[in-house]
């Protein structure tokens, strides 16, 4: 009985993965196998990291019951600052540029958290909407609205290098960071505090958890991952573009939601989020192969979000019903 429940719950958790597999098979058939050709699969692995990295940062925020609308702008400000530091100050040391990028991203993310907790802005929507505009504007301002190219090898390494000439190292980095985040969220005290805050803010505060710091941390983490995604971005385009990742925040949010994270907070995990990010990358890629226009792609992704959450709702209802029936049965036999 217990084992059966275990399997069931695993299948339940695998829901998004099953959906992803179905979509992959569907696209493979629709494209006559072109989709699953090794080269294309590697392309997908190249396209996923930016979405996935932003999504795992976003997950921290969504677990709080919050939202970070500024993620795309955070990526832009992080890479543009890096570009400006390189061009204007003539710094070509990759390590320094790397630190600047991560530092700016994390700091800007932390500002979101500080606005929310210290200024007591009523909802993260407001703080991050403000920062979305400020950061995007700043990115355009400091770059004069033009792309900055000519990054040193060290900066483009992550975005360009392939293992064995094919397998993108950016994807290896992504999986590595996801493992770290999984361990962090599941096995550390701070991770526990994030889930606790998302589950019940007041109970967490009254249990002595420093809820302000937990929130600031999560928004900073979102900024951090935007900056990491930015480094991949610099590599892929070999330039810092102020209008980079215009809809990155929404893709990140969608990845979390498709992956089963609850908007109310307290529920969700990194693997679902990774699957969610794949789902978006796979659909985009598949649509490109099929020659579907970008407006249609947008419609498809919108529908996927709604369907994914609806399936989640149905599954929740079925679980609740199955639980009731099982209990009724066990009581009757008793």
């Amino acid at each position, binding site marked *: 009985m217990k084992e059966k429940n275990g399997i069931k719950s695993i299948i339940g958790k695998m829901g998004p993965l099953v959906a992803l597999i179905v979509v992959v098979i569907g696209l493979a058939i629709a494209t006559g196998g072109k989709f699953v050709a090794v080269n294309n699969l590697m392309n997908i692995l190249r396209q996923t990291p930016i979405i996935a990295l932003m999504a795992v940062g976003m997950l921290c925020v969504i677990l709080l019951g919050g939202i970070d609308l500024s993620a795309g702008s955070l990526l832009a400000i992080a890479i543009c600052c890096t570009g400006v530091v390189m061009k204007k100050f003539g710094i070509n040391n990759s390590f320094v540029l790397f630190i600047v990028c991560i530092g700016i991203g994390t700091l800007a993310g932390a500002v979101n958290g500080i606005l929310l907790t210290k200024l007591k802005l009523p909802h993260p929507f407001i703080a991050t909407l403000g920062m979305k505009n400020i950061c995007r504007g700043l990115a355009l301002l400091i770059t004069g609205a033009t792309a900055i190219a000519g990054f040193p090898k060290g900066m483009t390494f992550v975005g360009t290098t392939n293992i064995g000439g094919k397998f993108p190292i950016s994807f290896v980095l992504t999986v590595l960071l996801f493992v770290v985040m999984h361990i962090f969220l599941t*096995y*550390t*005290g701070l991770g*526990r*505090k994030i889930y*606790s805050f998302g589950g*019940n803010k007041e*109970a967490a505060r009254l249990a002595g958890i420093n809820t302000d710091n937990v929130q600031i941390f999560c928004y900073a983490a979102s900024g951090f991952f935007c900056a990491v995604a930015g480094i991949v971005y610099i590599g892929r385009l070999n330039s810092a573009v102020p209008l980079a990742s215009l809809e990155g925040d929404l893709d990140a949010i969608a990845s979390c939601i498709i992956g089963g994270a609850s908007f109310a907070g307290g529920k969700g995990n990194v693997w679902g989020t990774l699957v969610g990010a794949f789902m978006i990358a796979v659909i985009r890629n598949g649509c490109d192969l099929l020659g579907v226009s970008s407006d249609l792609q947008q419609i498809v992704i919108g529908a996927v979000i709604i369907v994914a959450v609806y399936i989640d709702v149905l599954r929740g209802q079925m679980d609740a019903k199955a639980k009731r029936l099982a209990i009724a049965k066990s009581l009757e036999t008793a």
Partner: protein
Amino acid sequence: MGKLMMELKNVTKYFPGVVALNDMSFQVRAGEVHGLIGENGAGKSTLIKVFTGVNQPEKGEIFVDGKPVTLGNPNIAKQAGIGCIYQELNIVPDLSITDNLFINYYKKKGVLLDYGYMHKKAAEIMSQLGQDIDPKTLCGKLGLGVQQMVEIGKSILSEARLIIMDEPTSSLSNNEVIQLMKTIRILKEKGIAIVFVSHKLEEIFEICDCITVMRDGQHISTKPVEQVTHDSLIADMVGRSLDDLFPKQVSAKREEFLRVEHLNSIGVLKDVSFKAYGGQVLGFAGLVGAGRTETMRAIFGADEIDGGDLYIKGKKVDVKQPRDAIHNKVAFLTEDRKGEGLILDASVKNNLFLATIDKDSNYGFLDQKKYEAQGKENVATYKIKTPTLETPAGTLSGGNQQKVVIAKWVNTEAEIYIFDEPTRGIDVGAKIEVYNVMNKLCKEGKCVIMVSSELPEVLGMSDRVIVMREGKIMGEIDRDSEHFNQEDIMKAAWGGKLA
């Protein structure tokens, strides 16, 4: 005797982990006021939800006017003539009485709302209920009593023939209760049946024609009011003798653990000063809104205050946030268990160690082995009935949830325990277990402060009682004082002087 209006026959309803209704039968006749009583968790709420179509029973039959029906959803129940006034009122404060009454039933003239008709009808309904009031008044401006009348008005508007009132007097003042009783009599004369659910036996005796007692989801007795007594009802409800209810053990009084001086919070607390000692239960009595919870929240750093000093074991401490208080070994069991005490979706285990995350971490990593071991120990010590440590806390019964919260605080190794309404909404068996925890803490020399609105509980468990009224301390009564009785405490709570 009126004709049979509604009948439940052998209804059984399961929830995860409990049989909420077990072969329950219940009959209501037109024009009768039918009292429904039972301990918390006896199944009253579920019975109400079956009536109102919110829950569907797994077994059994429901008859309305002798005809079998399936109350598949709340709308069907409404059409069958069943209305319900829930404990939590469903009033939109920013809308007028008319808008609240006609919510969902807007009367239209063409495409526009016919406010002329609706205002007139609303005024008529409210005056039927004994409330001559302008229907354009915003509901937020009304007292709770009148808001409740608006709720009753909704049932009248939908032509309900059976109105269920779930603890209708719980948040009403005395005058409002009198008004409600009048209204119930008016409804009764119109042939409307009332199911009156209450914890207050005085009210049951005053208004009901017959009384049904439930226990453990089962029907225990239904008798006309003339045939029952206070004691017989309690015996039916509890199934055990009253002497066992408060197993107080007096422990040796120790040194001063907590001293509060001149606590002030504008408009809430006025110059609150008191001391609490180890080995003792200090009870806080008073009416709802007397400032007891606010005092405790101030001590715990949960709310900001405007002034006052706190001394723990003689040392002045600065408490600005809950974690400062926890650091000073203060624990606070809040009155709102679900809203402030537990993370309902999180597992029992995670709730047990919610307040000790930092203490249980090695270099930031949680000590899972300790969690398992201590979690199992907690479950055994506090008799927490849960299938596993991984079960979501929200699926446990109220009493077991409360035990999880208590264990969470004991795990912090606190020395001062503030229990705010620790037995609210839990059944008698669990209550006794909570009292035993308090005894145990006192025996270990810890200090317990208990806020309770139930006087028998305050008297039954406290070594000393402080009575508050309107944010001020009215008096202090020792267990061996002649004033240590219900009447004198009530007197002080209502502003009287202790002789």
